[in-house]
C-alpha cells in the first residue's frame, strides 16, 4: 500500500504504477457482518470496517465514509436509514424558504454525525498509517447538498428563481468549507468534493451554480496544503471541461464515461483522474468480466495522474 503514490496521482504526477482505491462505503459494513445503518452510526464499527477493508483489498487509500447525507443531516435534514445502503434524505428544510429564512446555521463538530466521524478517524488513522493507506474525506458537493436542502425544485430554480438558488447553493458552499476543515482536522490527506448530481445539468448552469460554490472548500483544502479532488457520477460529458477548470488537483468519474476521453482531458489540464472499473456492469451484475474490465481501465489510465478505482 502506498499513500504517497495516491497523493501524487491525484496531483497529476507520474507514478510507478496506478494506485488503487476501493470506494468501499457501506461495503465495509458487509465485510464485517454489520448492517449499514448500525455501522454508519457507531465510530468503533466504522473504524473496524474501514481498516479491515483497506487490508482485504490492499488499498492505497480509502474514503472515511461514502455518505452524502452527513452535511445535510448536520443542519437539519431528516434521514431514512437502510440496513444495506446509505441513508436517504427525506426532508428538505429549504423547500419553500431560503436557508436564512429557515434559520439554518453552519454545522459544528457536535452536530449530526460529525462526532461519530471524528471518533472513527481517531481510531482508524494510526492503523491506516501503519498500512501506508491514505484517508479520503468526502464532502457533499454544493449542488447535491442544495438538492438535499431544497429538494428537486433546485433544478427548476437555477433557471426560474436564480436568486433563491444562489442563496441555497452559497449556503451549501459554506457548509462545504466547514466540512473540509473538519476532514483536514481528522487527518485526511485527500479531500474530495463529491457532487453526483452536477452531471445532470448543463455546462452554463454548472459554471454559474457549481463552480463558485466549490471554491470555499477548495480554498480550505489547498490552503492547508492538502490534496483536493472532485468526484462526479453519471454521464458528465457535457460538464467535464468545467470539472477540469475547478481549483482541484484532480477529479474522478464513473463507468458511464470513456476513460480514454477522460485521460486525454486530464492530461490537457494537468489534473489527476480516477476511475473507472465498472461498478454496475462488471462488479455488480457480472455482465462484463471484472478482470478484463480492470485490464482495460489500467491500460487506458496509464501511469500519469491515474488512480484505479471503481466508478
Amino acid at each position, binding site marked *: 500500500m502506498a499513500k504517497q503514490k495516491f497523493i501524487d496521482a491525484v496531483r497529476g504526477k507520474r507514478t510507478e504504477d496506478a494506485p488503487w482505491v476501493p470506494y468501499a462505503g457501506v461495503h465495509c459494513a458487509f465485510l464485517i457482518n454489520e448492517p449499514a445503518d448500525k455501522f454508519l452510526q457507531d465510530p468503533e464499527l466504522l473504524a473496524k470496517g474501514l481498516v479491515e477493508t483497506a487490508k482485504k483489498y490492499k488499498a492505497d487509500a480509502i474514503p472515511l465514509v461514502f455518505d452524502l447525507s452527513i452535511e445535510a443531516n448536520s443542519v437539519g435534514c431528516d434521514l431514512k436509514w437502510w440496513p444495506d*445502503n446509505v441513508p436517504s434524505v*427525506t426532508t428538505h428544510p429549504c423547500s419553500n424558504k431560503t436557508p436564512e429564512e429557515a434559520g439554518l446555521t453552519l454545522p459544528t463538530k457536535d452536530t449530526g454525525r460529525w462526532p461519530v466521524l471524528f471518533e472513527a478517524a481517531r481510531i482508524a488513522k494510526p492503523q491506516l498509517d501503519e498500512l501506508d493507506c491514505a484517508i479520503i474525506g468526502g464532502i457533499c458537493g454544493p449542488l447535491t447538498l442544495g438538492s438535499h436542502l431544497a429538494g*428537486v425544485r433546485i*433544478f427548476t430554480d437555477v433557471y426560474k428563481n436564480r436568486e433563491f438558488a444562489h442563496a441555497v447553493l452559497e449556503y451549501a458552499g459554506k457548509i462545504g468549507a466547514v466540512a473540509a476543515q473538519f476532514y483536514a482536522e481528522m487527518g485526511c490527506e485527500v479531500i474530495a468534493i463529491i457532487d*453526483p448530481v452536477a452531471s*445532470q445539468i448543463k455546462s452554463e448552469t454548472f459554471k454559474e451554480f457549481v463552480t463558485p460554490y466549490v471554491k470555499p472548500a477548495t480554498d480550505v483544502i489547498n490552503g492547508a496544503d492538502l490534496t483536493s479532488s472532485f468526484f462526479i457520477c453519471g454521464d458528465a460529458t457535457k460538464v467535464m471541461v468545467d470539472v477540469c477548470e475547478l481549483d482541484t488537483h484532480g477529479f474522478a468519474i464513473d463507468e*458511464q464515461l470513456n476513460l480514454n476521453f477522460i485521460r486525454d482531458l486530464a492530461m490537457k489540464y494537468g489534473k489527476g483522474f480516477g476511475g473507472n472499473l465498472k461498478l454496475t456492469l462488471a462488479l455488480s451484475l457480472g455482465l462484463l468480466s471484472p478482470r478484463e474490465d480492470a485490464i482495460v481501465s489500467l491500460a487506458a489510465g496509464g501511469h500519469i495522474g491515474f488512480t484505479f478505482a471503481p466508478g
Partner: protein
Amino acid sequence: MAEKIKIDVLTLDSVQCAACGYMMESIAALPDDVQEMIEYKEWSIKTKEGVGKFMEMKGKVLPSICIEGDLVFESIIPQYEELIDAMGERAPSSVKERLASLRDVGFNFDKLQENLKKAGAGLNTKIA
C-alpha cells in the same frame, strides 16, 4: 380516470445514487392533481427486471426518465415545466388540457415519501 400517462424511471438505485434519487423525486414531487394522471415506477438496473426494462427502452445512460415509452430526460434532471410539457405532448387527449392548466403549480413535497414508496423507490435495489 381510465387513461394514465406511463412513466418509467431507469436508475442505478435511487437510494445509493443521488442523481437517480432526484430523478425519482422529480416525479414523486409532482402535485396531487398531476399524480392522479400518472403511473410510474423505478427500475433499478441492479435487478434482472431493471436490466430488461433498460434494454426494452433502449436506455443509454442512467438515470433516465421515459414517458409513454419515449426516452425523454437522459442524465438531465428536468425542470417542473419541462416535465409537464413532456407529459402533455404524450398524454391522451382527454387529459392534455387539464395537464396544461397545472403548468404553473410547481413541485409539492408533502406526500414525497408516500409517492416514492408507491413507485417502489429503494425497495427493489438488491442484486437479483
